[in-house]
Each structure stands twice: as structure tokens, then as C-alpha cells.
């Protein structure tokens, strides 16, 4: 059951991500990325991390992607030049060729290295399964990582002010 769900979610995530980089309309790219994030949230649930799954949906699919959609609609971007993932796109400028080759090499290295190791199984006892309860996360977040949490608030404040200043129309 878990195995089937994993392969379904993994296939959705990979195909949707390929769709994001594979076609020219930014609006469709954003929509496909939301699909990919939904599949990742499903994987987090399989990993018994419900808090992270919900955060993924609310923050990523709900907030960040809506921000992207706003900008896509605001700029009214036309479709860019022909789809780059075709043979013509891959045989384009040298930088694009190098980038494509490097990313394929990266994927091959990771798959090859990890599949040469024996399978590493997750522990199944109840103690490990209960590790990710929201109560435990909140406990650790506000004790051990309290400083990082507070620093994050300053980071968001700075980002907010920076975004307003940068995007302001100059007269």
C-alpha cells in the first residue's frame, strides 16, 4: 500500500516538475508546480510528517505560488520563445548545453550511487513513528531553535521591506 502510494506520488512529482521546465506558458508552469507540491505533501504524509505536509500545502501551494501567480498576471508575460526542451533547445547555446549535460550527470550520479548501497529501511517501532507529533515539533522549535526562530522573523521583516523598496515605482 505504502509502496504503491510512494510510486504514484513520485511519478506525479517528477512529471509535474518536468512539465514546469518543459513548456512555455509561465501560468501553466505555476499550476504544474502546485501539483508537484501536492504530491510532495503526500510523500511527507507517507514519511509520517503531517505537520510538514500541511505547511507545504498552506505556505508553498497557498502563499508562495499565489505570489508567483500575481506576478505572472501583473506582468502579463507573453509566451517565451519556442519550448526549450526539444532537440533544438538542447542543441542551442553552449551554456544551455553544458547546463543540461551537468544536470543529467548529477541525476545519474545520485541514482547510481544510491542504488549501489543496500536498501536502508526506516525503523517501524512506535517511538520513531511518534517523533513528528506537532507537540514535539513545537517543543523543540521554541526551546532548542528559539534563536533561529526569532532570527527568521527579522529575515521576513527585512525581505518585506526590501520587496516594497525594490518594486516601488520611481518618479
Amino acid at each position: 500500500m505504502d509502496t504503491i502510494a510512494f510510486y504514484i506520488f513520485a511519478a506525479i512529482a517528477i512529471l509535474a516538475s518536468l512539465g514546469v521546465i518543459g513548456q512555455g506558458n509561465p501560468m501553466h508552469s505555476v499550476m504544474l508546480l502546485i501539483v508537484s507540491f501536492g504530491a510532495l505533501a503526500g510523500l511527507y504524509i507517507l514519511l509520517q510528517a503531517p505537520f510538514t505536509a500541511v505547511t507545504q500545502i498552506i505556505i508553498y501551494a497557498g502563499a508562495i505560488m499565489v505570489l508567483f501567480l500575481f506576478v505572472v498576471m501583473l506582468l502579463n508575460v507573453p509566451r517565451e520563445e519556442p519550448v526549450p526542451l526539444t532537440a533544438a533547445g538542447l542543441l542551442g547555446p553552449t551554456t544551455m548545453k553544458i547546463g543540461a549535460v551537468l544536470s543529467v550527470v548529477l541525476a545519474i550520479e545520485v541514482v547510481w550511487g544510491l542504488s549501489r548501497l543496500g536498501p536502508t529501511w526506516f525503523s517501524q517501532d512506535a517511538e520513531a513513528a511518534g517523533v513528528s507529533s506537532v507537540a514535539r515539533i513545537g517543543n523543540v522549535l521554541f526551546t532548542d531553535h528559539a534563536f533561529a526562530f526569532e532570527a527568521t522573523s527579522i529575515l521576513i521583516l527585512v525581505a518585506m521591506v526590501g520587496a516594497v523598496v525594490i518594486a516601488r515605482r520611481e518618479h
Partner: protein
Amino acid sequence: MVPLNSYLILSGILFAIGTAGVFLRRNLITVLLSIEIMLNAVNLSFVAIGRYLGSVDGQIITFFVMTVAAAEAAVGLALVIALFRHRETLSPDAYTSLKW
């Protein structure tokens, strides 16, 4: 059951897709989207390894990565808007000079 390796392989493939997007696409918004794919691939390995080690820290750092991604998206999109006002294009090839 699915072993840890499968999650890490999936994470590596997603990261490679994101890298390919950054290099192949000629559209600033899609480049930012590819960066989001890469951040999510890293999040997936954090959560999977945290589950393997029986530690909650993997999810905590995922939480921080999401926060940083939100800040990065806000500033990055503001930059995209400012650039688009100057040049009326989103192609990175149009922005080769530091000052104009």
C-alpha cells in the same frame, strides 16, 4: 515498505530537474520556479533522513527552508518586476550589464 534510498533518489532527480530548468529556461519567472523545485527536493531529503534518524530536526529545518523560500520569492519577484519595468522583457540575456 519503501527504503530511504528511494526517497533520496527521488530527491536527487527533482534537484536535477530544477538545475536543468535554471540552465535551460530563458524566462526569469520560470528560473525562480526551478529554484523552488530544487528547494523542495532538499526538503524531501531532510524529512526522509529525519524520519530515518528518528529525529525531529529534519522537519524543523524544512520549516526554516520554507520561510527562507518565502522571503526569496518575495524579493526575487520584486526584482523581476523592477527589471521588467526597465526592459519590457523577462529574458535573462537582456540583463547583461550591471548598470544602465
